[in-house]
Structure formats: structure tokens, C-alpha cells
């Protein structure tokens, strides 16, 4: 769903990467390539249950995929979706840069015209 924040802004994606613990799970998974929740819990100061919960949110946001190997479930990062998250962050920052530049232009014009009137 898109919001006012930026066109095409994806709340689920942002909520997924917005949580610091979840970013660490994502980071650990990037380092390992593919991993089970147990392996990730070994890398992080989180329980396996907590890791599993974070992975479920990341999965819903499309940032990771799960694949069953026998009795294990292995997770991997979805590169295209991660790319989208990066782009969303850059786009939202760029939108504020555009607005700040417009404020600067308007304020400087206004200051110059008021200074001009003061001299008359």
C-alpha cells in the first residue's frame, strides 16, 4: 500500500526493515547466504523463537524465502526485494531533499524581496 510518505511506498516492507532486531537477522542471513533459524540464533543474541518470529515478518514482506530441506527449513534473502527496500529509502530521502531545496528557493526570494523593500 502506498502512503503520503512517497509514491509507491510500501509500509509492510518498511515495517519489516524498520525493526533493529529484524535488521540484524537480515544482516546475519546476508552473511550466511542461506541459514536455518537455529544457525541464525547462534550468530545473534536472540532466541530461536525470536529469530523465527522475525523471519516470518521478513517472509511476509517478501524479503526472505523459506525452503524445506528434510526436517529443516532454510531461509535465504530475496535480492530483488532488498533492492526495492534500498530504493524506497533513497526515494523518500530524495523527496525531502527536493522539498528542502524548494523551501530554500522560496525563502531566499522572499528575504531578497523584503530586503529590497526595506531599502526603498
Amino acid at each position, binding site marked *: 500500500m502506498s*502512503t*503520503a*510518505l512517497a*509514491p509507491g511506498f510500501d*509500509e*509492510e516492507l*518498511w*515495517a*519489516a*526493515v*524498520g*525493526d*533493529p*532486531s529484524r*535488521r*540484524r537477522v*537480515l*544482516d546475519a542471513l*546476508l552473511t550466511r547466504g542461506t541459514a536455518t533459524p537455529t544457525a541464525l540464533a547462534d550468530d545473534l543474541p536472540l532466541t530461536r523463537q525470536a529469530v523465527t*518470529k522475525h523471519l516470518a*515478518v521478513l517472509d511476509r514482506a517478501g524479503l526472505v524465502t523459506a525452503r524445506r530441506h528434510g526436517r529443516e527449513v532454510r531461509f535465504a534473502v530475496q*535480492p*530483488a526485494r*532488498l*533492492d526495492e*527496500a*534500498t*530504493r524506497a*529509502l533513497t526515494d*523518500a*530521502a530524495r523527496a*525531502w*531533499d527536493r*522539498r*528542502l*531545496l*524548494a*523551501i*530554500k528557493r*522560496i*525563502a*531566499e526570494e*522572499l*528575504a531578497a524581496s*523584503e530586503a529590497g523593500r526595506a531599502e526603498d
Partner: protein
Amino acid sequence: MEPAVSTPDQIARDILIDAPVDVVWRVVTEPEHIARWFSDTAEIDLRPGGDGVLTFRQNGGHVAPLVVDTVRPPTTFAFRWSAPEGETAHEGNSTLVTFSLAPEGDGATRLSVVESGIAALPGGDERHRAFFDDHSQGWGTIVPRLGEYAPTAAGALR
């Protein structure tokens, strides 16, 4: 004042403007100016808790309601927006946009904007968590990593 940094939890940008603080304050807060730098039309009740409406014509047009959070002329103006449709913006369902103005040098102003609360938008399952609790560990890791990773990801897709 510590400069704010951008993370997936918040966007922080700033700019130096060659105009006095009171002029910048008017541009940031007055509807006639807001309708030039932000939206296509703007209405705003400039007091804490006051309502505002921005309309945008681009992308088929949309209406963005907002709620004023802080009004401290001429240094701080903050509002909440991006709440789900039909809901009033409050902490936990919206983002907070804070403008800070500080005089700098001879008649210039440093204007900074921070949009925070992104992690608490609906969809987050841990709204109770303070956004920046964990920032010493969580911040700065994924942003460089995402940047480093993205070109690889893009390359892999080609």
C-alpha cells in the same frame, strides 16, 4: 544539536538557507508557501493538535491529512501524517515530521527535517519497542549493507 542521521527508522536531511530564521519559519509553516514547496493546496490549523490537509495532483491526485504536533516559533514545527486512511494520526500509526530551524552565520538558517516513526507504521508487529532503543547496534549496519548489496542484487538480476 547533534545532526540526525538517516536509518530505515527515520529520514534526516538538512540544508543551509541564505535567509533569516523568521523568513524560513514563514515558508515552512504558512499554507500559501507550503502549497509551493510541498503540496498543490494546503490548509493548516497552526497549533498543537490542529488539523491540516494537503492535496497532491500528481499520480492521479490524493489527499493527505495531517495533525500538528509542535509549534515553537521560530525553531520547531512538527506534524504527523501517513496514518491509514480514515484514522486520525497519532503516535504508533503515523510518521512524525519535525522541522528544526537554527540561525547560522550572518542572517542564514540551517533547516533540518527528520521524518521518524516509520518502523511503527501499521504492519510493524513490535510497536511497543522504542524506535531507537537499539540504535547503537541496529543503526548503520543495514544501511551500508543494503547499499553494498544492492548493486550486487541488481547485477544478479540482469
